[in-house]
C-alpha cells in the first residue's frame, strides 16, 4: 500500500506576540523602534512556542486518520501546513494526490456574482481546471438543485442554497486526499452535517482522510486510526478507539465539579448562564467515582437572566470513553412547562443505579428549548464534568460473579424470568 501523506519532523514555531496581535500599525512599530533607539534598548524579546514539534506521520492510502487533542495542541496548525496555507518552520511533508479540504468550501464565493459565475470562480480557487468545471457543470448544478437560480446573484440565495452550491462544487473536486478541520469548519448545523456526510462518502470510496475533531464519538466511529497531539507533538498513535479512550481518560481531569463564578463569562447567553455542574451521590456529596449499584445525580446550577419566551428545560448527555452517547435526558416535568422567569435554579438529574457500564463517563449539560426539529441550546458545556463508574465486585451487580471484560454502553440489571418446561 502506498503512502498518501508522509511528514518528517514537521515543526512550526510562532512567536507569542504574533499570535496575540498578528498585525499592528506601522506608526506604532516606528514609534517603538525610535523609543528603543533613544533608550538604547535591545530588540523586543519574543517568547516562542512550537505549535508543532517534530511530527512524523505516515498515512497510507485509503486510511481515515483522526487527529485529536486539546485546543492549541497543534491540530489546526498541522492541517494548515498540509493544505499549504502556512509553511512549516522546519521539517518536510510529501503528499501524493490532489488535496481537498472542507475548510475551503465556498471560499471565494462572491455575493455579487451569479450562481453560474461562482461555480467557475470557486472551482478555479479549489484548483480545478476550466475544462474540468465545464465538464461537470451540469452535474454540479443538478446536485445543488439551483437550476432556476443560476443567473441570480448569490447574495439573493438563501443560506441553505449557497451551502448546497458550495458543497456541490467541492463534491465534484474529487480529491484523493481530504483534510477536514471540524473545529474550524464553523457554520450552521446544516453545514456541519454535510461536512460529516461528505467525509463518510469519501471514506467509503477509499480516499485518504485526515480528520481533526473535538467530537470523540465521530473520531472513534469514522476513523481507522487516531493520533493524539499534545503541545505540538504526537503522544499517542493507535486505533481510534484506543486513542479516544485514552484521551477521554486523560481529560477526565474535567473532574466531578465545575463552577463558573463570573456570570458574564459563564457558558450561555442573554437568557441563560450556566453556574455550576456537580456529580453527586444520594447524600448530596460530590463524587468522582461512583458505585455502579447506587444512583448518581448530575446537579446543574444555572441563572435565568430575563423572562423567557418559550419553556426551557435542563438536559444531560452522557458519553462513554469510546465516544458513544449513552443517552440524552431532559426534564419533562411540569416544572418546565411555562416560559421561565429570572432567578437561580438548581436542577438534578438522577441516574438510577445498575444502569451504566463501568468506566469514565463524560457529562454534557445544556439548557434547551424545543426548536422545530431539534433542541435550541441556550447555554451548555460539553464535557462539563466526568465520573468513574466502578463495580466493587460484590456479586450483586449486573456482573454477577464475572470479572472479565463487559461490553456495552449501559449495563442494566434486568429482571429475568425463566420457567422450566
Amino acid at each position: 500500500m502506498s503512502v498518501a501523506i508522509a511528514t518528517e519532523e514537521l515543526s512550526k514555531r510562532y512567536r507569542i506576540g504574533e499570535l496575540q496581535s498578528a498585525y499592528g500599525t506601522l506608526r506604532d512599530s516606528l514609534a517603538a523602534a525610535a523609543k528603543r533607539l533613544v533608550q538604547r534598548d535591545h530588540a523586543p524579546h519574543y517568547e516562542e512556542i512550537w505549535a508543532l514539534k517534530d511530527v512524523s506521520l505516515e498515512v497510507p492510502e485509503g486510511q481515515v486518520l483522526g487527529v485529536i487533542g486539546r485546543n492549541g495542541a497543534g491540530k489546526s496548525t498541522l492541517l494548515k501546513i498540509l493544505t499549504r496555507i502556512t509553511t512549516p518552520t522546519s521539517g518536510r511533508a510529501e503528499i501524493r494526490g490532489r488535496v481537498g479540504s472542507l475548510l475551503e468550501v465556498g471560499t471565494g464565493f462572491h455575493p455579487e456574482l451569479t450562481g453560474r459565475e461562482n461555480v467557475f470562480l470557486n472551482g478555479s480557487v479549489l484548483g480545478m481546471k476550466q475544462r474540468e468545471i465545464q465538464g461537470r457543470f451540469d452535474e454540479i448544478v443538478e446536485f445543488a438543485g439551483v437550476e432556476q437560480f443560476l443567473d441570480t446573484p448569490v447574495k439573493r440565495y438563501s443560506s441553505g442554497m449557497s451551502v448546497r452550491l458550495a458543497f456541490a462544487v467541492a463534491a465534484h473536486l474529487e480529491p484523493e486526499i481530504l483534510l477536514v478541520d471540524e473545529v474550524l469548519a464553523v457554520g450552521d448545523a446544516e453545514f456541519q452535517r454535510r461536512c460529516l456526510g461528505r467525509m463518510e462518502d469519501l471514506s467509503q470510496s477509499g480516499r485518504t482522510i485526515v480528520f481533526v475533531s473535538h467530537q470523540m464519538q465521530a473520531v472513534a466511529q469514522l476513523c481507522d486510526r487516531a493520533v493524539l497531539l499534545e503541545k505540538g507533538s504526537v503522544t499517542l498513535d493507535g486505533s481510534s478507539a484506543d486513542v479516544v479512550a485514552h484521551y477521554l481518560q486523560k481529560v477526565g481531569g474535567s473532574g466531578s465539579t465545575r463552577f463558573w463564578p463570573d456570570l458574564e463569562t459563564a457558558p450561555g447567553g442573554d437568557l441563560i448562564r450556566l453556574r455550576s455542574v456537580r456529580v453527586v451521590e444520594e447524600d448530596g456529596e460530590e463524587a468522582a467515582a461512583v458505585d455502579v449499584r447506587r444512583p448518581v445525580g448530575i446537579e446543574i446550577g444555572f441563572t435565568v437572566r430575563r423572562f423567557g419566551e418559550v419553556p426551557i428545560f435542563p438536559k444531560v448527555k452522557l458519553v462513554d470513553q469510546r465516544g458513544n452517547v449513552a443517552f440524552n435526558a431532559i426534564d419533562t416535568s411540569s416544572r418546565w412547562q411555562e416560559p421561565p422567569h429570572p432567578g437561580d435554579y438548581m436542577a438534578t438529574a438522577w441516574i438510577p443505579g445498575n444502569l451504566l457500564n463501568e468506566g469514565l463517563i463524560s457529562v454534557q449539560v445544556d439548557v434547551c428549548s424545543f426548536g422545530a426539529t431539534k433542541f435550541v441550546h441556550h447555554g451548555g458545556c460539553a464535557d462539563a464534568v466526568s465520573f468513574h463508574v466502578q463495580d466493587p465486585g460484590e456479586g450483586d451487580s449486573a456482573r454477577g460473579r464475572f470479572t472479565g471484560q463487559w461490553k456495552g454502553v449501559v449495563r442494566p440489571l434486568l429482571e429475568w424470568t425463566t420457567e422450566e418446561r
Partner: protein
Amino acid sequence: MTDTELEVRERAPAPDPERPQPTERVERVTVIKPAPRWPHLDVRELWHYRELLGRLVWRDIAVRYKQTSIGVAWAVLQPLLTMVVFTLIFGYVGGFASKGLQYQVFSYSALLPWFYFASSVNLASNSLVSNRGLVTKVYFPRILLPLAGVTVPIVDFLVASVVLVGLMFWYSTAPSAAIILAPAFLLLAFVTALGVALFFSAMTVRYRDVPYAIPFLLQSWMFVSGVVLPISEFPEYAQWLLALNPMTAVINGFQWGVVGAGAPELGKTLISVGAAALFFVVGLWYFRRSEPKFADTI
C-alpha cells in the same frame, strides 16, 4: 461467473467518456518545505495557476462593472474630469507648458497611463487584505492577487482610451510612428506598479495603517511624473533625478508615440527602466519574504 464480473465492475467503474477523469493521479506529489531563505519567483508554478489568475481578474472586472451603477462611465469620467480641471487651472490660468500640444491633449494623454498606474497600485496594494478569505483558506501563489490587481485596471485604461482618440480627432493631433513602442512603455508602467504594489500589499498585511498612506503617496508621485507639467520644463539636473521615477519615462514615451510629442531621451529612459526593474526586484523580494506569514498575520 456473472457474480464475479459484477463485483469487479463495482470496484473499478468504467471510465465515463463524458466526464474528464482527474489527471496526474499518481504523479501529483506535493512537497511541503519551509520557505526558502532566498525568495524567488516560481514561474513554473505561476504558469500552473494561470487559469486562476484569469478568474481573479475576471471576477474583479465583473464585480466592478456590476456594482457601480455608472460602471463603464466611471472609467472615463475620472480621467476626463481631472483633465478638465487641470486644463482650467494649469492650462488656462497657470499657462503651463504642454509640449506644444493643446493642454487638453497633453493632460489627458498623461492622465491615461497615470490613472492606470495609480489605480493599479491602489487595487493591488489592498489585494491581500481584501481577499483575506482566500488567503486563509486555500493555497495558491499569493502573488496572483497583486498580479490580478495590476491587470484589472487595464480594462479601464482601454475604455478611457476611446476619449483620447476623440480628443485627438477634435484637436487634429496625429500619433507618430513611435506608437508601436507605446505597449512597451505601458509594460514599464505595469512592472513598476507591480513592484510597488508587491511591496505595499505585503506591508499592508503587517501594518494596517499603510493603506491610508498610499493615496497621499500617489498624489505626490503624480506631480513629479510629468502629468501636470512636462518633465522637460524642469532644470536639467532635476530631470536626471526624476528619471529615477519610471512613470516619467512611461508618460513621456506614451505621449511620444500616441500624441506625437517629442522623443524622450534614451539615457533618461534607460535610467527609468533600471529603476522600474529595481522597484520590481525589491517589491518581489519583500513580498516573497513576507509570504510565509501572510496566513498567520492577516
